[in-house]
């Protein structure tokens, strides 16, 4: 090939490459900035599509988005206080069965229609059409009758007393209120709604499945108007991509539980270019020891395992301060959970070893694992393989307990497998976290006392288990506030002291936002959106 031919072929190749580049690069370089927010719009990243804006359905609808559009009768405020909301007051009959709500008279739906007792009843009746689906929420299956007494009075009669009713009315779904125009002809909202008409501060403005959703202010909102005019939710499924979009400035706010990795959170925090904040504890991370298993049936072994690891170092080391070491099985900021008298079991290797010796698990000469009747002290712990914190904690416990002569096998499983194995009682130790506000403590004691959730079986070696189970049933029916407080003060410490439920850490929500974002504050309700008072400078 002579020189001119060679040049020609190179020129041809370069031209082809240039055309390719042009073909794919024919864009406005500023296009990437189209997401950048202005002072009126708060843009946040969320891992999943917001789902259907229907107040009466579950997955894949996202709780935070449902709570932006639809509102409850009762508001769950800090410290577990239940405040009036769409209902300005309520009256509970002495037998604890009849609830009479006086509704606010200044509330309108986003389409201008009136919020009154008739529409409240219609929503309740739509929910009750699918009673079985919603029966996980205790009061739903106990509703006997609903009445619109007059325009501002709604009455609900239960078949038996159930104290957490008011607390359960504060949850995000399924009892929030859809306007008349939203109802399908047959009244069954479980298959979909006609329009997303709610009383909340926001209305859905634009929506592209799996891409984004924007919410604008509800002009008819009865409460204080939000400070920003729009909320844009960008759907970014990958946590690292969320961080990159935030760093680029496309996103103003990332919040939630495990919204980004611990490392990424701390890295962004250390740059000091952004603001970061953590919520109050929303739930407790627990170890559930299955007392049906021979090794764990002995309380001394369960206690030894608690003395056998350094909780503070474990939690701080693994979560870098994103979670706090937990002393109680439920966070103390929930109702009836503070000032409980529980035995503290701090890191004490000597005590752990002596308890194991006492329980008959001796360390044979030259061996590293304790034995009893020729059987080694082997215990298996399962964890959610997708959750890095659980994995790291399981690994740390494995090495900590090895020093006291316990052979911990750790098994990473997928979350649905973990739930299933827990329910089927096929585990030695499981990692679990409770529901949090506004579900606990009543939901927690309810599932512990119910067959088929794994807990009832797990605590089966407790000598006082029958009494405990009865108390857990009774506490939900108690109408006397003082008695209820007393009962929880007995149930919760007893569950914890006997060592099958071991508190590890308090889970918290994280938030990271650009410097211009002001007044960010987490909602007390774990599932609610925190946008009410946010502003942008």
């Amino acid at each position, binding site marked *: 090939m002579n020189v001119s031919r060679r040049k020609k072929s190179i020129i041809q190749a370069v031209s082809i490459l240039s055309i390719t580049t042009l073909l794919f690069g024919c864009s406005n370089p500023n296009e990437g900035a189209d997401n950048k927010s202005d002072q009126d719009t708060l843009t946040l990243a969320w891992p999943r599509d917001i789902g259907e804006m229907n107040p009466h359905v579950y997955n894949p609808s996202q709780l935070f988005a449902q709570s932006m559009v639809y509102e409850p009768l009762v508001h769950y405020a800090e410290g577990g206080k239940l405040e009036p909301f769409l209902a300005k007051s309520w009256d509970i009959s002495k037998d604890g069965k009849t609830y009479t709500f006086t509704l606010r008279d200044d509330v309108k739906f986003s389409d201008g229609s009136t919020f009154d007792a008739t529409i409240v009843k219609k929503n309740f009746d739509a929910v009750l059409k699918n009673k079985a689906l919603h*029966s996980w929420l205790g009061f739903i299956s106990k509703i006997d009758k609903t009445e619109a007494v007059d325009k501002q009075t709604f009455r609900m009669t239960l078949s038996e007393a159930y104290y957490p009713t008011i607390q359960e009315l504060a949850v995000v779904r399924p009892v929030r209120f859809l306007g008349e125009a939203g109802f399908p002809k047959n009244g069954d909202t479980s298959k979909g709604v006609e329009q997303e008409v709610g009383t909340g501060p926001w209305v859905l403005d634009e929506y592209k499945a*799996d891409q984004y959703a924007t919410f604008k202010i509800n002009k008819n909102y009865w409460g204080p108007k939000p400070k920003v005019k729009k909320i844009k939710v960008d759907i970014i499924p990958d946590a690292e991509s969320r961080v990159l979009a935030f760093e680029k400035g496309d996103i103003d706010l990332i919040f939630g539980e495990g919204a980004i990795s611990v490392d990424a959170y701390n890295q962004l925090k250390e740059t000091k270019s952004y603001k970061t904040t953590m919520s109050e504890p929303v739930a407790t991370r627990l170890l559930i020891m299955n007392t049906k298993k021979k090794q764990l049936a002995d309380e001394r072994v369960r206690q030894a395992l608690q003395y056998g690891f350094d909780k503070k170092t474990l939690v701080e080391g693994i979560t870098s301060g994103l979670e706090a070491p937990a002393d109680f099985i439920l966070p103390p900021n929930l109702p009836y959970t503070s000032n409980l008298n529980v035995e503290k079991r701090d890191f004490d290797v000597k005590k752990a070893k002596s308890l194991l010796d006492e329980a008959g698990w001796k360390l044979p000469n030259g061996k590293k694992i304790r034995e009893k009747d020729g059987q080694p002290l082997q215990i298996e712990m399962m964890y959610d393989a997708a959750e890095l914190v659980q994995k790291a904690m399981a690994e740390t416990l494995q090495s900590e307990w090895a020093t006291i002569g316990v052979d911990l096998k750790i098994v990473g499983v997928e979350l649905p497998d973990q739930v*299933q194995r827990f329910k089927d009682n096929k585990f030695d130790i499981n990692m679990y976290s409770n529901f949090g506000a506004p579900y606990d403590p009543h939901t927690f004691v309810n599932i512990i006392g119910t067959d088929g959730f794994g807990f009832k079986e797990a605590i089966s070696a407790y000598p006082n288990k029958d009494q405990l189970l009865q108390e857990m049933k009774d506490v939900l029916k108690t109408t006397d506030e003082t008695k209820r407080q007393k009962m929880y003060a007995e149930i919760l410490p007893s569950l914890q002291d006997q060592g099958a439920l071991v508190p590890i850490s308090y889970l918290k929500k994280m938030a990271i936002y650009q410097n211009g974002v002001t007044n960010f504050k987490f909602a007390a309700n774990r599932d609610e959106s925190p946008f009410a008072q946010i502003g942008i400078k």
Partner: protein
Amino acid sequence: MGVYILKRVGSVIPILLLAILLLTAMIHLSPVDPAEAYLSAAHIQPTEEVLAQKRAEFGLDQSFLTQYVTTVVRLASFDFGTSYVSGKPVLDEVLLRLPATVQLALSSLLLAIFVSIPLGFLAGIRKNGFFDHLSRGIAFIGASIPSFWLGYLLIFFFSVQLDLLPVGGIGSPSHVILPAITLALPLIALYTRLLRTSVIETMREPYVLFARTRGIRETIILGKHVLRVAIPPMLTGLGMNLGKLLTGTIIVETVFSWPGFGRYFIEAIFDRDMPIIQGYVFLAALLFIGSSLLVDLLQLAIDPRIARKGGDRR
């Protein structure tokens, strides 16, 4: 030849039936009850009553054989059932997201073709030259960097540092550049090297030497004799990888927030949304089988002796 084609097309049916058998077995092999997974994903504590109701609704209370036959009949009429999670027909969910996936896959395929043909060709005709080294470098990177990592690197460099391209999403042509490069790079790596080898081998063929001795111009030899002969094997490889390309979008779509079906599939796996998983796996199987069939038929068109050889074997 007609018999060969009929036989080849007919062989697709048992493969599909086997695929559906595996799909049905998937539900039974998994330790997780889809009804339960659905309820846990919705933060509902499942009661026995609602579990039984959901199982009946999903058809999980029927025998394995009934489930298998029902699935075959359904899929034969392209009825993929209803998503457990959204309650919408699977086909609607697929059709809503498939265009985005096809757009990404096609862009990557075009990019792979436009880059690997000139690069592989230049690397072949100039062995150990600049383009050969370049192709070797690209092949090394393309084969060794995982897609998600490459995706992050590209986003970090082009979006965060240089602010040239969007981090993710869909909408303008600029949104497709980074995901297409991420998805195309392993293909470019593979096809550049394939074409290079093919070009080098063709250049050694006697007819190329003969053409040279006849004094034919080098550009004509390279264009008419070498490239035309070297490209078909590469295209065959491309065809065979079509299915891989579409399924490969799963990770890229997640990293680049691309609203395609691959990403939706990941969510379906976490939710144990069996109809979506079955629909996706069935479509992927169809695509793999279809593209392999297409390649066979293409090869037959190029070389009709294949049918005779096939006949001899039988």
